[in-house]
């Protein structure tokens, strides 16, 4: 299934668009589904089963707490696995981050201090999860608004070491990289040129906001043209993955979002 989604631009599935998608059967080739949205029972499950009959999906999680140290929440993992069995996503992704500590859940993506101890812990947890699900996870780079002191690795070094030890895949969020570099007044060029694109199976694109001197990864605007240019550049360098628009806030109608998706599809079509 993965093979057929290469170079296909998909969308993030949002509940408010569900009925429009099921009624109008758009051309969207695949959807990314936030697993955490389906932890509870409700009519959305029936709808997802219906969508699944015609359209591939990938699971994206925000709660695995890969970079944390708390024991995994057994109920959460069991529910997750059940969803995985029912909906058969093409792959599962989560972030290179921690999101809970000492039993307190932040429901946010917090940056990992990139030290050897963090690397050891993170790799062990990814391996545990990969054994649990019986597949290689895709790990996503996040936006970070704080910089730690005394880190041993750069993000690229950290990611490469994780891939080497765990065999996991990558989800490259182009917009997150650009936001991180913009906020630090730096050029993201080096990051992209060093990024191990052969391991990338999925790409995120989104539009952020500018708030109190900081670019925020708010997923509330259309994708910036600059981000699409970076995607095109990476494709010409050999990137072969599935791409998608992440939109969570200031949500337009599904038709508008689908239109934006088609524009990105067209933008990359002449270099494929």
């Amino acid at each position, binding site marked *: 299934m993965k093979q057929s989604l290469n170079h296909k631009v998909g969308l993030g599935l949002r509940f408010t668009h569900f009925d429009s998608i099921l009624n109008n059967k758009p051309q969207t080739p695949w959807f990314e589904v936030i697993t955490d949205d389906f932890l509870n029972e409700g009519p959305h499950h029936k709808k997802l089963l219906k969508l699944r009959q015609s359209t591939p999906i990938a699971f994206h999680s925000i709660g695995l707490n890969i970079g944390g140290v708390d024991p995994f929440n057994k109920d959460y993992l069991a529910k997750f696995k059940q969803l995985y069995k029912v909906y058969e996503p093409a792959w599962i992704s989560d972030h290179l981050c921690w999101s809970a500590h000492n039993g*307190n859940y*932040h429901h946010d993506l917090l940056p990992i*201090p990139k030290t050897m101890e963090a690397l050891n812990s993170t790799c062990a947890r990814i391996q545990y999860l990969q054994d649990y699900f019986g597949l290689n996870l895709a790990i996503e780079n996040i936006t970070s608004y704080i910089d730690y002191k005394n880190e041993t690795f750069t993000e690229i070094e950290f990611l490469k070491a994780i891939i080497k030890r765990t065999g996991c895949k990558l989800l490259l969020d182009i917009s997150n990289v650009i936001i991180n570099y913009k906020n630090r007044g730096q050029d993201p060029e080096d990051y992209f040129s060093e990024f191990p694109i052969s391991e990338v199976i999925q790409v995120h694109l989104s539009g952020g906001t500018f708030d109190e001197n900081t670019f925020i990864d708010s997923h509330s605007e259309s994708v910036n043209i600059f981000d699409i240019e970076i995607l095109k550049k990476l494709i010409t360098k050999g990137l072969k993955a599935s791409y998608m628009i992440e939109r969570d806030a200031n949500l337009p109608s599904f038709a508008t979002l689908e239109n934006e998706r088609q524009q990105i599809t067209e933008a990359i079509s002449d270099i494929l």
Partner: protein
Amino acid sequence: MTYSEHLNKVSQSILNFNQSLHDNLQEIIQSKSIANISIYRKNLFFGAFNNLTTDYVGLRSHLGNNNFKFLVRKYLLESKIKSPNIFDFSKYFSIFLLNTFDFHKDDLLTHLARLDLLYQYGEVNKSQTIRVTTGVFAYWSGLINKVDNLSPQIDKNSQEEVIVFDDNGERCLKLKARTYVL
């Protein structure tokens, strides 16, 4: 400092968002970016607030935005989020209200919250019902339908049973024809 201690410092600085940022963050975070902890504090608060706003439509309408915000803030600071499932945090809000306000003096908030929860999460297939003080359901319905100049007409001596049902794919609540005299 261990990795766990490192995470703990960052976690505590976000969770205790009513306190000023502690000097000990200097040890682990570059001073230029320490103030950005406020971004994570905002994310935490508004994540919780937006979830509760979606789930507690009747209660929020009764309290007004500022009072509702105050309660969410209090709930978040005192209870923290203890589940990877954000819906659990939302569901326990009604218990928090029960523990925070003297139930016998003013159970209106708790009962409005319970009706909101029944509306959002009640088991339609099992025709789930709950009992609330007589008059609360009529008031809640008015709040949901944005009726002007509402005031609750409560009879504390009896309770009514409310049922959740499916009306052409839309979740609805209605009064089940049973009244319990206390």
